[in-house]
C-alpha cells in the first residue's frame, strides 16, 4: 500500500493539471463536451484517490508520509525540493478541495451552458484544483509559495473571466495586488525561516522550531523582538491577504465579479481558506509566540464582527454571501488565535460545504432571474424553485449555527474556545464572535426572506418577443421574459450533494476531529495552551452538545437575529428603510464598507501613480536627463564656446596674455 502511495499522490495533483492542459491548450481542437468530460474525469479521479488516502489514514492505520518528487534546486547547502507531506490534515484538505471542486465542475455544465468561454472556464477551474492541491500537499515552503501564488493567478484569471466588463478587470487587478501586499510579508517570513533554521522543509523547520524560542532580532536599533513573533506575524500577513482578513480584505467582495461557480469554489470554499490552513500547518511556529497568536485572534475577531455588519446592508445576493465568507474566515482566524487549530480546520471544512452550497444556490437563483443579482428585484421564489429553496435553507441554518447543522458544531465550539482562552485580547474577541452570531443570523435570514419569501418584486413581460437565452441582455433590471423556474439537474444535483454534508457532517466528525487524536502529529499545541482540553472536559458527545445548546447564549443570540430579520423583512417590510434613514451615519458607514476602498484608492493606487509620475517627470527627466545628461552636454558646449574665443588668431591677444602671465608668475615668485 505505501509503495504505491507516491504514485497516487502524484496522480492526485497531475490529473487536474493534465485535464486543464487538454481543455485549455487544445481548446480549438476539442468539442465543448470533451472539455467538461476530461476535466470532470480528472478532478473525479483526484477526489476518488483523495478519499482513498483519507480512508487509509482513518481505517487502515496509514501514517503520515513525506515524499520527495524531485530536487528543484540545490544551492550551497540549501535544498529546494518539490514533494508531498500527506498527513491527516492534508488528507482532509485534499478530500474537501477535490469534492467541492468536483461539485462545481458538474454545476458549471449548467451554469455556463451559454457562455462562449465554456472550455476556457473548465481549463481554469481544473488548473485551480491542481494549484490548490499543490498548496495543501506541500512539504516545504517553496512549494507552499508556488501553490499560494498559483491559486492567486487562477483567481486573477477567473475574476476577470468576463474580460470585457470594466468592473471585472478592475476587480481582478485589485485582487492580485492586494494579495501581493500579503505575499510581501509572507515572503519575508519565509526568508526569516530559512535564515534561522537553514532549511525550508517543514520537517527540518519544525524540529528546529523550539530552538527559535529564546532568540531575538533587532529590526530597529535597540528594540529586540522575539524571532518567532516576527516570523509568525510576517507569515500571518500572507494569510491576511489570501484569507481576506481586515485590512487586506478589500479584494474579496469585488471578486464576486467572477462567475458564480468560482465564487463558490475559490472565493468561499477553498482558496480563501489557504491562509487558515497555512497557520494551522505552521502551528509549531505559531505556538512559540503568544503575541502573534493574540494578533491573529484580534484581527480575526474584528473581521468576523465588522465584515458581517457590512453584509447586512448589501443588496447583491452574491455580495451578502461574500461578506459572510469574510466574517466566517474571521471566525476561523479567531480560533487559530485561541490555539484551537483543530476547531478552525473543522469550521473550514463545514464552511466549505455550506458556503459552496449557498453560493451555488445563489447561482441557481441568478440563472432563474436571468442574471439579475439584486435581491430587491426578487422575492417569493420558494414556490418556483423548491430544490434550490430547500437546500438554501439547509445552508442558511448551517451558517447561523443552528443546533444539529454542521456549522453549529464548528462555530459553537469556536465561540466556546475563545471564551476559554486566556490570551490577551480574548475578552474582546469573545464579544465579537458572540455578537457576530447575531449579525450572521440577521444577514442570512434577510437574504433568505428577500429572495425566497414575500411577494415577487420582479415583473414578467409576456409580450417580450425574444427567446429566453438571448433575452436577458436586453431586459431592464427586475424584468423577466417568463416566470422563474427551477434549474436543470446538473445544477440541483450538486446542491443536494452539498446539502447532505452541510446537514450531517458535524455529528460524526466533531468527536474524532476535535477531541480524538485525529490531528496528532499534524497540528502541534503547546501543553501550556490547553483550550482544547478544557473544551473536552465539557464535551459529552454530539447529541448532548445539541441539547445543551439551549442553555448557551449563542443559540439565543442567533435566534434573535433571525427574529429581527423576520420583523424587518416579512412582518414590517417598511422598517428597513425607516431605520436606514434614522441611523443614516451608521448606514452610510456600512454602505461604504467603512471607507476602506476609498482610502486605498486615494492613498495606495493614487499614491503609487503620483509618486511614479513625480519620480519620472522630475527625477528622471528634469534632474538626471535635463540636469546631468543634457546639462553636461550643454556645459561642454558652453565651455567650448568660451574657450573658442581665446583662439582668436590675433597676435596682440596672445602677446597680451603672455605679459599678464609673466607678471603673475613674477609676482608670485616675489611674494611667496
Amino acid at each position: 500500500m505505501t509503495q504505491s502511495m507516491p504514485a497516487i499522490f502524484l496522480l492526485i495533483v497531475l490529473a487536474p493539471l493534465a485535464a486543464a492542459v487538454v481543455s485549455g491548450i487544445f481548446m480549438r481542437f476539442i468539442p465543448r463536451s470533451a472539455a467538461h468530460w476530461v476535466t470532470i474525469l480528472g478532478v473525479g479521479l483526484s477526489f476518488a484517490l483523495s478519499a482513498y488516502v483519507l480512508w487509509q489514514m482513518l481505517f487502515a492505520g496509514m501514517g503520515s508520509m513525506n515524499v520527495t518528487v524531485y530536487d528543484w534546486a540545490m544551492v550551497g547547502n540549501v535544498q529546494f525540493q518539490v514533494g508531498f507531506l500527506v498527513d491527516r490534515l492534508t488528507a482532509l484538505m485534499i478530500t474537501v478541495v477535490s469534492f467541492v471542486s468536483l461539485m462545481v465542475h458538474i454545476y458549471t455544465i449548467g451554469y455556463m451552458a451559454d457562455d462562449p468561454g465554456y472550455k476556457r472556464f473548465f481549463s481554469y477551474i481544473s488548473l485551480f484544483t491542481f494549484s490548490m492541491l499543490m498548496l495543501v500537499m506541500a512539504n516545504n515552503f517553496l512549494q507552499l509559495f508556488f501553490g499560494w501564488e498559483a491559486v492567486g493567478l487562477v483567481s486573477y484569471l477567473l475574476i476577470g473571466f468576463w474580460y470585457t466588463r470594466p468592473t471585472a478587470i478592475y476587480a481582478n487587478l485589485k485582487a492580485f495586488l492586494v494579495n501581493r501586499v500579503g505575499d510581501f510579508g509572507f515572503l519575508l517570513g519565509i526568508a526569516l525561516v530559512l535564515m534561522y533554521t537553514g532549511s525550508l522543509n517543514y520537517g527540518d523547520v519544525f524540529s528546529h522550531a523550539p530552538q527559535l524560542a529564546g532568540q531575538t532580532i533587532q529590526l530597529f536599533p535597540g528594540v529586540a523582538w522575539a524571532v518567532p513573533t516576527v516570523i509568525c506575524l510576517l507569515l500571518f500577513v500572507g494569510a491576511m491577504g489570501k484569507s481576506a482578513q481586515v485590512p487586506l480584505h478589500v479584494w474579496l467582495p469585488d471578486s464576486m465579479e467572477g462567475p458564480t461557480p468560482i465564487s463558490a469554489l475559490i472565493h468561499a470554499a477553498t482558496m480563501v481558506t489557504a491562509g487558515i490552513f497555512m497557520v494551522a500547518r505552521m502551528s509549531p511556529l505559531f505556538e512559540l509566540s503568544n503575541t502573534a497568536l493574540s494578533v491573529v485572534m484580534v484581527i480575526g475577531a474584528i473581521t468576523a464582527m465588522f465584515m458581517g455588519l457590512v453584509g447586512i446592508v448589501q443588496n447583491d445576493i452574491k455580495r451578502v454571501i461574500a461578506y459572510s465568507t469574510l466574517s466566517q474566515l474571521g471566525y476561523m482566524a479567531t480560533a487559530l488565535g485561541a490555539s484551537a487549530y483543530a476547531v478552525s480546520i473543522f469550521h473550514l471544512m463545514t464552511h466549505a460545504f455550506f458556503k459552496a452550497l449557498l453560493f451555488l444556490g445563489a447561482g441557481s437563483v441568478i440563472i432563474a432571474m436571468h442574471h439579475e443579482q439584486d435581491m430587491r428585484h426578487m422575492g417569493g421564489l420558494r414556490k418556483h424553485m423548491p430544490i434550490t429553496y430547500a437546500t438554501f435553507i439547509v445552508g442558511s441554518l448551517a451558517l447561523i449555527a443552528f443546533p444539529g447543522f454542521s456549522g453549529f458544531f464548528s462555530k459553537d465550539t469556536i465561540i466556546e474556545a475563545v471564551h476559554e482562552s486566556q490570551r490577551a485580547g480574548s475578552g474582546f474577541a469573545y464579544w465579537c464572535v458572540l455578537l457576530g452570531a447575531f449579525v450572521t443570523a440577521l444577514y442570512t435570514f434577510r437574504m433568505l426572506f428577500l429572495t425566497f419569501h414575500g411577494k415577487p418584486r420582479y415583473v414578467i413581460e409576456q409580450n417580450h418577443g425574444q427567446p429566453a437565452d438571448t433575452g436577458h441582455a436586453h431586459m431592464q433590471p427586475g424584468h423577466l421574459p417568463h416566470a422563474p423556474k427551477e434549474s436543470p439537474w446538473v445544477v440541483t444535483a450538486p446542491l443536494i450533494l452539498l446539502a447532505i454534508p452541510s446537514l450531517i457532517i458535524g455529528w460524526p466528525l466533531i468527536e474524532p476531529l476535535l477531541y480524538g487524536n485525529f490531528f496528532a502529529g499534524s497540528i502541534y499545541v503547546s501543553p501550556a495552551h490547553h483550550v482544547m482540553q478544557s473544551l473536552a472536559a465539557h464535551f459529552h458527545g454530539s447529541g448532548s452538545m445539541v441539547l445543551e445548546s439551549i442553555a448557551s447564549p449563542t443559540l439565543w443570540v442567533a435566534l434573535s437575529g433571525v427574529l429581527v430579520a423576520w420583523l424587518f423583512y416579512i412582518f414590517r417590510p417598511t422598517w428597513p428603510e425607516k431605520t436606514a434613514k434614522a441611523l443614516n451615519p451608521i448606514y452610510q458607514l456600512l454602505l461604504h464598507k467603512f471607507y476602506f476602498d476609498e482610502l486605498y484608492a486615494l492613498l495606495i493606487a493614487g499614491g503609487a501613480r503620483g509618486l511614479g509620475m513625480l519620480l519620472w517627470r522630475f527625477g528622471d527627466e528634469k534632474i538626471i536627463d535635463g540636469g546631468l545628461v543634457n546639462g553636461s552636454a550643454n556645459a561642454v558646449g558652453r565651455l567650448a564656446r568660451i574657450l573658442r574665443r581665446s583662439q582668436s588668431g590675433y597676435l596682440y591677444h596672445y602677446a597680451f596674455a603672455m605679459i599678464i602671465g609673466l607678471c603673475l608668475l613674477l609676482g608670485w615668485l616675489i611674494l611667496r
Partner: protein
Amino acid sequence: MTTDFPILSILLWLPIAGALVVLVAGKLAPISVRWLALFFATVVFALSVPLWTGFNPGTAGMQFVENLPWISTFNVHYHLGVDGISMPLILLNTFMTVLVVIAGWEVIQYKIAQYMAAFLIMEGLINGVFSSLDSLLFYVLWEAMLIPMFLIIGIWGGPRRVYATIKFFLYTFFGSVLMLVAIIYMYVKTGSYDILVFQHTSFGMTAQLLIFLAFLVAFAVKVPMWPVHTWLPDAHVEAPTGGSVILAAILLKMGAYGFLRFSLPIAPDASRMLMWLIIGLSLVAIIYIGFVAIAQTDMKKLVAYSSIAHMGFVTLGIFIVLLIFQKTASTDGTVMGVEGGLVQMISHGFVSGALFLCVGVLYDRLHTRDIKAYGGVINLMPAFAFFLVLFAMANVGLPGTSGFVGEWMVILTSMKADFWIAFGAAFTLFLGAAYTLWMVKRVLYGPVGNSNVSGMKDIGKREFIVLGLCAIPVIVIGVWPAPLLNVMHATVSNLVHQVVQSKL
C-alpha cells in the same frame, strides 16, 4: 579543458563571416536572403549547444580554452574560454539571435540584408565579449559591439532615433573609456593583459579603488544602474523590435558580467568598501524605477524601466554576498545570492526579450506603442493574449516561471544580510505586479478600445513560433532550475571564495 575543436572561435567568427555572405548575397536576392540569415543563426545556435553538453560542471576553471599570441610586443593574446558564468550567457545570445532573425522576417522591408547582417555581426562580437579572457581583446569587442547596435537603432529606428543613438553611444562610450585606462594601468603593473593574471595580482587599496571605480562607470552604464540609466528607455523606444530584444536580453547582461569577471575578483577589497554604494543603487533601481514604471504610458518605456528594476536584483544578488560575509564572517548561503543574480540575468533575457517581441507584435499592427491606443485586444487576439499574460506573469515573478527563481533566491539571501534590504527588495512583489498587470489590463482586457483595435488580426504562425520558443525556457527554468544552477555552482563558489579573501 582544452579541445582541439576551436568552438569559441567559431562562435565568434562564423556569425561575422555569415554576415558578410549575407551582405554579398543581399545584392543578388534582397528578399530571400532572410533564409540565409536564418541558416547562419541556426547553425551558430546548434554549434553552441555542445558548450552546454560538453561542459564539465565539476570545475571552476576555464573550459574550451584557446590561447594564441596576438600582438606579442604588448603581450596581447587571443585568449578565449568560458566558465559557468559566461557559458549560459553565450547560449542565451545564440538562441535570442535566431528569434530576432525570425521576428524581423516580414517586418523589416528596408535594407533587409544589412539588417540581418548587423544582428549576425553583433552576435559574434557578443560571443567574443563573453568568452574573451584577454582584457584588450575584451575591450576591443566590447566597443566594437556598439557599432552594429548604433546602426540598428540609427537606420531602422523610430523618429527620434538620432537623439537616442547619440545618447546611447556617448553614454556607453564614456563609460568604457575609463575602463580602458584601468586596463592599461593593470598592464603596466603586471606586464600582461590576461584577465586571469589580473585576478591573481594583489593590487594596493588605492589602486583597487581606482580600478573599481573606473570599471564601475563602464558597467553601471551598461547594466544600467540608477542614475546612469536614462539612455535605456530612449534607446528602446527608438530601436526596432529586434534591437530592443537584443539590447534587453543580451547587452544589459554585459554590465553585470563585467562585475563578476573584473570588479569583484580583481578589486575585492575595494568592492567590499564600496558595496554599500552598489547595494543602495540596486535598491533604488528596484523601488524608484518600479514606481517610475507604473507611470509609463509607452509600452516599450514601461518594459525598459521594468528591465532596469529587474537588473537591480542582479547587482543586489552579486554584492549582497560581501555584506553577508562582513556580518557573519562566513560564506554560508552567499552562493545563492550570486546564482540568483545569474538566473535573473538569463531569465530576464527570455522574459524581457519576449515582452519586447509582444510589444513588437502590437506595434506591427497599429504602429503605436501608446497604451491608450489599445484596449480589449484579447477579444481579437486570444492566442497573443495567452502569451502576453504568460510573459507578464513571468515578469511579475510568479513561481513556475523563470522570473521567480532569481528574485526568490536574491530575496532569501538578502535577509541574511539585513532585514531591511530584503524588505526593500520585496517591494518588487507589489511594484512589479502593479506596472506589469496594469499595462496588461489596459492593453488586453476590457471592451474593444477603438475601431483600429477591432481590425487587429491574431498572431500568425511565424509570431507563434517566436513567442512559443521564448515560452519554453521561461517555463522550464521556472519548474526545474536545477540544471541551469548546476553548471554555475563550481564557478560561483570559487568566485565567492576569491572575493572574500583580502588582497592587501
